[in-house]
């Protein structure tokens, strides 16, 4: 029975204040420029992958194959999908990552890998920016918890609906229906080139959801 380094489960938890500061700086960048710097998104994301490689190797050497090796390996496969995401070939590592995480990984690994691939898919569909997607990936690597997904999803739904109602009034359900019809027909923004009717920066919403989760964990000791 090997314990392994469960960095996905217990987490390499950066200090709560550090994560808060990082999110605040990202929100400021978003509000000012609608762009997020590579130093705060791409570099930490690659850092997560380096940690995953090291974790997989250490856990493998300690006790051979186990869920604690499957988790980081699945995350590395998800990153290969990121690297290959200019073509449909990315589906091969993406599917392998999902199968590995859900077949042999821990629940934490399943949340992290699924979160990474959903974030990537939404960015490739043109629904949100690559910067937003990378922030989500970093958050899911740090806190692979379904409660984080629920917090951010709730924030997006609430803020999204409020903004849609403010912009369109009672007609907003029709826009959602038209969007749903377009989506089912495969007419995503990345294919049609349409920006969308209500386009806005997303970092404040993501940060709000993430901070509720992070500070909730910290204060409630979850």
């Amino acid at each position: 029975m090997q314990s392994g380094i469960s960095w996905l489960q217990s987490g390499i938890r950066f200090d709560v204040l550090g994560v808060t500061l990082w999110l605040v700086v990202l929100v400021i960048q978003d509000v000012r420029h609608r762009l997020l710097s590579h130093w705060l998104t791409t570099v930490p994301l690659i850092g997560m992958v380096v940690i995953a490689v090291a974790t997989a190797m250490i856990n493998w050497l300690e006790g051979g194959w186990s869920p604690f090796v499957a988790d980081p390996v699945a995350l590395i496969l998800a990153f290969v999908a990121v690297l290959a995401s200019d073509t449909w070939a990315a589906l091969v590592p993406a599917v392998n990552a999902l199968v590995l995480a859900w077949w042999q990984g821990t629940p934490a690994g399943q949340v992290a890998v699924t979160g990474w691939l959903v974030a990537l898919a939404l960015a490739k569909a043109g629904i949100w920016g690559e910067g937003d997607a990378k922030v989500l990936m970093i958050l899911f690597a740090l806190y692979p918890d379904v409660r984080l997904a629920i917090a951010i999803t709730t924030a997006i739904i609430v803020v999204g609906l409020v903004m849609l109602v403010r912009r369109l009034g009672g007609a907003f359900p029709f826009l959602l229906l038209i969007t749903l019809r377009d989506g089912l027909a495969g007419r995503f923004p990345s294919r049609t080139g349409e920006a969308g009717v209500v386009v806005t920066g997303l970092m404040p919403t993501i940060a709000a959801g993430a901070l509720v989760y992070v500070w909730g964990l910290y204060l409630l000791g979850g």
Partner: protein
Amino acid sequence: MKFLRGVRATASLEWLVVAVVIVAVIGAILLGVFDAVRDKLAAIRDSL
């Protein structure tokens, strides 16, 4: 690699709301199916 080079921080809200709802619905269905299959496999294993 376009993804890694990208730094955009904007989202199309109507798409995002629809996508979140679809992902949540499909996720819930898959989770339900997964749980049902797991329970059935556990029942089979227990009966052996």
